[in-house]
């Protein structure tokens, strides 16, 4: 017999191992933000997805050096930029330096007279050229051997400086300093782009480590610090934190459960048996979700495993009810109906969620249902073959003493009833929203990291991420022309003080249409030559010195037009790509206003143009709408699920009154849990809602077992003991979870820990000495 059980245990673990291997090999685990986006998405939501998931550019890392004098920061910035550039691990490194070692701008320089700001009609006239030449003469005499000297024959009018000034006007970066400095000069800023693919988290993590090592070697004192931000930094930090927390939390939970099991059963080895249903449940859930959805989201796996963690209660009930005379099989015969009813009720509550239009939610529903079903089946069919005949001693007499007098029970019931009603009043009359509205709070990223990212991005002049004007056209040219047509109106908003500035792709890349115009306006070589000769009359410039200038203007006039590729080649793609990109079959141009003081004028501007290609978009509003939709849908599915669960309960108990006696304490504990969460000012996300559903499942189990066994004194103590162990396990594990820094886990932990404790108390008080069982 003993050998039979051992063999069954070994075979079970062999099977479980196979299942785990299958899940690991077969499932396609995704960890992006796709979990929170709906299946049917609008172009606006896609834009939001794009901005949230990829940030302005893939694999872009923003670097801020601070904690020293500007001179020191500039030195460090240059040292790092050089070391980064030498390492060949980056597609592009920039600290804003425009020296010989800065980015290669030659492909752009050749087309300088097509760029913005446009050449005015009189810019190449005699008077303007004369002014430019006189100024050049002065800078030749005062500036010793500077770059200006090398540029002079090609660029006597200071075209390059004008372009740079024009571009810098679009960013908030400190101007004219050799490297990018923050506006208050307390930080030097850099931007690098990894040459490894952005989705390769391991490579990104390695790269960030490399950057930090280099910084540690180059820094001159300990006061200097380097902050990194960007999508890949957030992603790696999140995954690192999740990993660390998961290890810590798992270890703490396992130790805690072992301790409870030892206290309960005096046999830690029983734990091996007890986790089998859970293990199979997780594997089955993962496999079915993968089969139905083609992928398994990381959030589904993590959160789903937590949800079906309550399946650990099933073997606890089985073990607790095994009496010396019968063994596990007999015990199963006696508790199976109750256990099955509790399980089916919980499954019913989760069932509607599988129909959600949000794939993440639908996955979670499926995972939970499959997991609970399989865990129950494993408890039913596998565990009796493994469990010893007498897994634990009969309950000690302590449990019998836990029998309050009828008077005390009545008093407690009344008190809890009043408390629940108070909670109901508090919940319904409380001011302000109780809902979480920020989409990003549903992601596991620490808030501090997101704040740093926002700050650095603002410093880099990566405009407002909230308000946007969106141009959507079949071709890039149409987007650029539409964007140019808006420039005057936007400039008027700047002058009226409604916005501080704006950034758009056509600022850097003029449309082909305007380029054609500019080419036409550029003077013929002979005309320019004549103007130049007249302007230089009497000045000591050697004749023929400005041939390269004449060549340059001619090349702009007759050569190929300026294209997006020119910017990419020059390493300036990061500036244009976030503002101009393909989406679906269309080209999208984003016009990003800076420092918006009056969003309504932007909306009005878009409306007044009455152009279907142009739209005003408030990303925050858009994301709040998304979160609202998500929550509303969850609430609808809960509203559908709870009546179904009640119906199953009614059918299972074959009595409406008994159903009420079981459901009432569950409902009350739900009210009390909700009130406690609100008292602590916790905003409710869908994760909280699903956790509350879990509280319902746990509470129903407790109530059902109490309801079933309260009459028989022997069963009563066994049930009481089983429920207390179940609750002790749930409360302690979820309390550990509540210590997590990841907002979602913290929320779930708090909700379930509080809810499980209330559920046990209420189920006990309302079953004790009366209730449904007497009926």
């Amino acid at each position, binding site marked *: 017999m003993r050998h039979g059980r051992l063999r069954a245990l070994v075979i079970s673990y062999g099977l479980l191992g196979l299942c785990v291997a299958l899940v690991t090999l077969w499932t396609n685990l995704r960890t992006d933000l796709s979990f929170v986006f709906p299946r049917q998405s609008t172009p606006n939501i896609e834009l939001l997805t794009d901005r949230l998931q990829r940030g302005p550019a893939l694999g872009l890392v923003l670097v801020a050096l601070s904690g020293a004098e500007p001179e020191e920061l*500039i030195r460090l910035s240059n040292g790092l930029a050089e070391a980064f550039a030498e390492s060949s691990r980056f597609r592009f490194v920039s600290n804003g330096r425009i020296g010989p070692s800065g980015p290669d701008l030659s492909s752009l320089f050749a087309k300088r007279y097509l760029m913005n700001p446009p050449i005015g009609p009189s810019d190449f006239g005699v008077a303007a050229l004369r002014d430019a030449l006189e100024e050049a003469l002065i800078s*030749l*005499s005062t500036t010793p*051997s500077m770059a200006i000297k090398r540029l002079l024959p090609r660029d006597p009018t200071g075209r390059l400086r004008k372009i740079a000034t024009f571009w810098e006007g679009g960013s908030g970066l400190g101007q004219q300093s*050799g490297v990018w400095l923050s506006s208050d000069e307390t930080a030097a800023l850099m931007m690098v782009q990894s040459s490894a693919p952005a989705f390769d988290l391991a490579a990104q993590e390695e790269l960030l480590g490399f950057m930090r090592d280099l910084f540690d070697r180059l820094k001159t004192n300990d006061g200097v610090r380097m902050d990194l931000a960007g999508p890949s930094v957030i992603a790696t930090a999140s995954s690192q934190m999740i990993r660390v927390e998961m290890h810590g939390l798992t270890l703490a939970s396992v130790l805690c459960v072992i301790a409870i099991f030892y206290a309960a059963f005096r046999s830690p080895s029983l734990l091996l048996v007890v986790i089998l249903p859970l293990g199979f449940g997780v594997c089955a859930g993962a496999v079915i979700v993968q089969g139905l959805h083609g992928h398994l989201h990381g959030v589904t796996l993590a959160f789903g495993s937590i949800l079906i963690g309550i399946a650990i209660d099933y073997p606890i009930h089985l073990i607790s009810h095994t009496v010396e005379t019968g063994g596990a099989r007999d015990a199963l015969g006696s508790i199976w109906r109750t256990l099955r009813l509790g399980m089916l009720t919980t499954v019913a509550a989760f069932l509607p969620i599988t129909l959600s239009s949000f794939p993440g939610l639908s996955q979670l529903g499926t995972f939970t249902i499959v997991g609970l079903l399989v865990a129950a089946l494993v408890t039913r069919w596998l565990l009796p073959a493994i469990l010893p005949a007498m897994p634990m001693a009969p309950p000690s007499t302590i449990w019998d003493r836990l029998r309050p007098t009828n008077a005390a029970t009545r008093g407690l019931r009344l008190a809890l009833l009043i408390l629940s009603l108070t909670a109901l009043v508090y919940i319904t009359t409380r001011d302000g929203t109780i809902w979480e509205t920020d989409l990003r709070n549903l992601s596991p990223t620490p808030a501090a990291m997101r704040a740093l990212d926002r700050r650095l991005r603002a410093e880099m002049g990566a405009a407002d991420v909230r308000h946007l004007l969106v141009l959507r056209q079949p071709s890039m040219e149409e987007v650029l022309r539409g964007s140019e047509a808006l420039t005057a109106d936007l400039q008027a908003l700047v002058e009226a003080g409604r916005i501080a500035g704006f950034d758009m792709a056509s600022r850097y890349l003029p449309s082909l249409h305007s380029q054609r115009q500019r080419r036409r306006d550029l003077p013929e070589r002979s005309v320019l030559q004549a103007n130049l000769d007249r302007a230089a009359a009497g000045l*000591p410039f*050697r004749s023929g010195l400005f041939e390269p200038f004449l060549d340059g203007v001619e090349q702009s006039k007759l050569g190929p037009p300026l294209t997006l590729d020119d910017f990419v080649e020059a390493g300036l793609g990061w500036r244009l790509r976030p503002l101009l990109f393909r989406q679906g079959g269309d080209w999208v141009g984003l016009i990003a206003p800076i420092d918006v003081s009056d969003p309504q004028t932007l909306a009005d501007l878009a409306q007044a143009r009455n152009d279907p290609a142009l739209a005003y978009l408030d990303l925050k509003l858009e994301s709040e709408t998304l979160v609202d939709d998500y929550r509303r849908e969850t609430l609808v599915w809960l509203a559908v699920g709870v009546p179904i669960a009640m119906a199953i309960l009614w059918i299972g108990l074959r009595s409406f009154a008994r159903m009420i006696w079981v459901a009432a304490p569950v409902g009350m504990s739900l009210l009390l849990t909700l009130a406690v969460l609100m008292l602590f000012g916790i905003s409710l996300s869908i994760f909280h809602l699903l956790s509350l559903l879990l509280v319902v499942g746990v509470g129903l189990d407790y109530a059902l077992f109490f309801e079933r066994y309260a009459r028989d004194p022997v069963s009563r103590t066994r049930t009481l003991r089983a429920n207390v162990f179940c609750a002790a396990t749930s409360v302690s594990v979820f309390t550990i979870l509540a210590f997590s820094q990841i907002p979602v886990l913290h929320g779930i932990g708090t909700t379930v820990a509080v809810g499980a404790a209330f559920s046990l108390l209420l189920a006990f008080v309302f079953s004790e000495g009366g209730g449904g069982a007497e009926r």
Partner: protein
Amino acid sequence: MFVLLSPHSELASQTPWSLSRLTAALAQDVGSTVRFSEERQLQYLTEPLFLEGTLTFKPPGYLERQVVQPKWQRMIIDGDLVSIEENWKDPPIRVLLSDYPALEAFVAALRSILAGDQRSLERTYATALEGTEDAWLLSLTPRPQHLRDAVSEVRITGAGGNIQSIEIMESEGDRTIITIHGKI
């Protein structure tokens, strides 16, 4: 700084005139300001340019050059950082000395000499000292390739611990002659 010190110390009159005695003599007076005038002969131009201003040196690496004619400009070179102010209101333009080898070649020589650092001078330049204590000529040829690409030779003349002129020959043929007029 630039200069000018009691040219005849006890030691000076006893040992023969040499680079070590020259640098020792030059290093004795630092931290003052001198006037200078400059003539630039540029390939771009058919006639030379002239300008005037002041120079200040504070050891070990601070150099300030203020031009007053024909147009005000101030350049401060501190360490590897160069700040240039074209007028009073705009913030200075900041660039790196190492990005501009022609300037670097000149500044490195001046710093070594004024700080009396013979070793760093000889590390960066091949030196040749001619003449006597009362009329000497120090010719410097940059050793590092990137400096030699920009500047072929720096020639400094003086008397005792006084620098009288600095001539910079750029590789592309441009020539700058700085004449030191004395303390303010």
